[in-house]
């Protein structure tokens, strides 16, 4: 089987798992090379394999004959680290190995996939992209991920107006999955919180191939008072869906990182997006009042 064939097969299997039905099973077996005729002869079950990434790591316990399973689980409940995975000889068990690879694959997907166009449309985001041509350039040239071309600058100007009080913008960053998992719950919470102070925000911009520094360019272009940028965090093996909110008073080119306030770890297992949004709204209000952000905010 060449690489393309394998890829096709995996794609179909995944599609089948998602649809949950057995309709596609036949097509897969049909495409199995003739040399593996046994596979076709085996009775085909319509059941899906369970999705191993759905298993909760904190309660997944693979040690054989534990002395005190309950206590081990108690320790495990405090961390998603892969403790208590048991072993086969000197190595992991197959399940552990598969899970690590599945999580790693999810992390890579989060980086290399794009936030879908449907998602951007559904949320009425205005689409712009940085100077990066593609993902490879995005990963190798952080500087380009912080700046916009002439055309994009015009779109930003038109969308945000001049000297807006607050902008909420979204960047894919290193995890498109994080953006798709969290912004729909977080943005309404921020907007609701801001409306308490009679602050309205212009439509949100979505930035493809975005680094956090992209907010500085937008600040430069619009002279916004506060920009709140939601951006996907570099995914790890625990979650690929963690997002951060970087909030900055008057971001401009060359602003020191210490002037950004960040709320990190926004995901299902961390700070929930709704609560993070409500908190962000109050932070933004404080920044407007104190005309400061980052560590300066703690001084005043």
């Amino acid at each position, binding site marked *: 089987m060449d690489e393309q064939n394998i890829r096709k097969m995996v794609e179909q299997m995944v599609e089948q798992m998602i649809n949950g039905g057995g309709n596609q099973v036949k097509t897969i077996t049909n495409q199995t090379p003739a040399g593996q005729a046994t596979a076709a002869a085996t009775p085909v079950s319509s059941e899906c394999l369970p999705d191993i990434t759905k298993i909760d790591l904190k309660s997944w316990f693979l040690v054989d004959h534990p002395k005190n399973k309950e*206590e081990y689980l*108690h320790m495990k409940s405090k961390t998603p680290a892969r403790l208590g995975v048991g072993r086969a000889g000197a190595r992991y068990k197959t399940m552990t190995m598969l899970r690590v690879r599945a999580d790693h694959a999810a992390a890579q997907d989060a980086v290399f996939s794009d936030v879908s166009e449907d998602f951007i449309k559904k949320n009425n985001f205005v689409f712009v992209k940085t100077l990066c041509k593609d993902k490879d350039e995005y990963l190798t040239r952080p500087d380009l991920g912080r700046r916009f071309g002439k055309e994009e600058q015009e779109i930003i100007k038109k969308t945000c107006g001049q000297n807006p009080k607050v902008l909420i913008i979204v960047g894919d960053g290193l995890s498109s999955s994080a953006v798709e998992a969290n912004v*729909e*719950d*977080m943005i*309404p*919470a921020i907007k*609701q*919180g801001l*409306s*308490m102070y009679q602050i309205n925000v212009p439509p949100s911009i979505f930035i493809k191939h975005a680094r956090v520094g992209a907010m500085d360019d937008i600040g430069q272009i619009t002279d916004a008072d506060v920009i709140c940028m939601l951006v996907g965090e570099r995914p790890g093996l625990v979650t690929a869906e963690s997002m951060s909110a970087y909030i900055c008073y008057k971001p401009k080119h060359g602003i020191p990182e210490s002037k950004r306030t*960040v*709320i*990190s*770890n926004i995901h*299902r297992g*961390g*700070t*929930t*997006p*709704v*609560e*993070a*949004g*409500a*908190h962000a*709204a*109050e932070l933004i209000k404080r920044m407007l009042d104190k005309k400061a952000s980052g*560590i300066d905010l703690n001084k005043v």
Partner: protein
Amino acid sequence: MREELLSVGIDIGTSTTQLVFSKLMIENIASNFSVPKVVIVDKEIIYRSEIYFTPLRSPTEIDGTKVKEIIEGEYKKAGIEKTGINTGAVIITGETARKENAKEVLETLSGFAGDFVVATAGPDLESIIAGKGAGAHVYSKEGRTGVVNIDIGGGTSNLALFDHGEVKDTGCLDVGGRLVKIDKNSGEITYLSEKMKELIERKNLPLRVGTIATKENLQPILDAMVYALMQSVGIRPMDDEFSLFITHKEGEEVTKFTCDETIKNSCPITSITFSGGVADYIYGEDRAADEFEYGDIGILLGQAIKTSPLCKELKVLKSVETIRATVVGAGTQTMEVSGSTITYTKDAFPIKNLPILKLSKEEEESAKSMEQAISTKLNWFKLEGNLQKVAIAFEGSKTPSFVQVSEYAKGLLAGMKELMEQEFPFIILVENDMAKVLGQSMYRMLEYKKDVVCLDSIHVEDGDYVDIGKPVAEGTVLPVVVKTLVFNK
């Protein structure tokens, strides 16, 4: 940003009245890169009062004036002003809670002791507070095991079962040192509680008021008490005799005691701690010179427990506090802090004695079911047709979407319409972390015209009451005391 809160604990028990002052340290332990998380990081007792006999005006009445004098004197001795007190609790325990003027005395005292000093009573809470004051919950948490604390005071023995640090059950028995009182000089029995009289009758013992007490003629009483304690922790089988010792709780048809079953079914215990005045004679090495030094059977009871199977079949752990366990518990274990992302639109605290209306998991299913459940249950909180202030509590989803939070807000507001007409504040206690967004949602739906208090990370049940104190830690959190207000009759 460490902040110190000064806390007072006052215990008015069957035999003794005491007070402690302690410092509670609170701090934001979250990193700069996340939402704040303010917790109590340390507790330190800075002053312990003398131990006074609880002044009584008559066998059925507490001498409120004398109690107040004692407290006033101790504030002065400690050099602490009432205005400096941030929090604390006055607890009235054991038989004292059954005195006619218990409620009145308690309320006067809590107001006198400080602005946010709560008044509590009720044997369940008493058990828990004493158990925590004795340190049983810490042993149980650190040893990852089941531990029972028995707080043996003058009138009652309060049991608290802890498993892995969590309270599993409580119980109360009429076993105590001052159920039989003896004249120190003459050795005559001067008082027998009703339960003791019944016990004496059942066992046909030659003991009456006026009888000269000796260790020997009291022995059957002591044996019966110790045996009941053994039954209560499940190391001896239950029998009909046991029911005599169960403390009757107000509002209950039949007197219930469930600790032994809980131990058998879900909370196996390995260790035992003792607190209360009698505990000193369980742990104590020396024999008191005079067994009737305190004019009661406390010393003998302690010695009887010490040599009983209670201390042989269970591992005895040294409690942190003995006679002061309840007062220390009241001073250091009653206050919690709310979650650190919460909503309050106006600082109108403290709010005291708020009853809880708790929704079940099914009831919080949809906005409609929340509305219905709240408006129905609000009727329970009507006194002669008038609605009182009430706080609505529910658990909520761990990871709610914005749409779901809006649903919660809608359901809550619709259900609380009647409260709105009464101009009562909207007070919500949600268990999972969402109080800031939920409070903001409600506030928006009220068009920012009505005030909202929405707190999270506080666990309450139907029948509880809460007190909410003034904001601390730069306004990020509110101190909360969850309590019961059950007076024994």
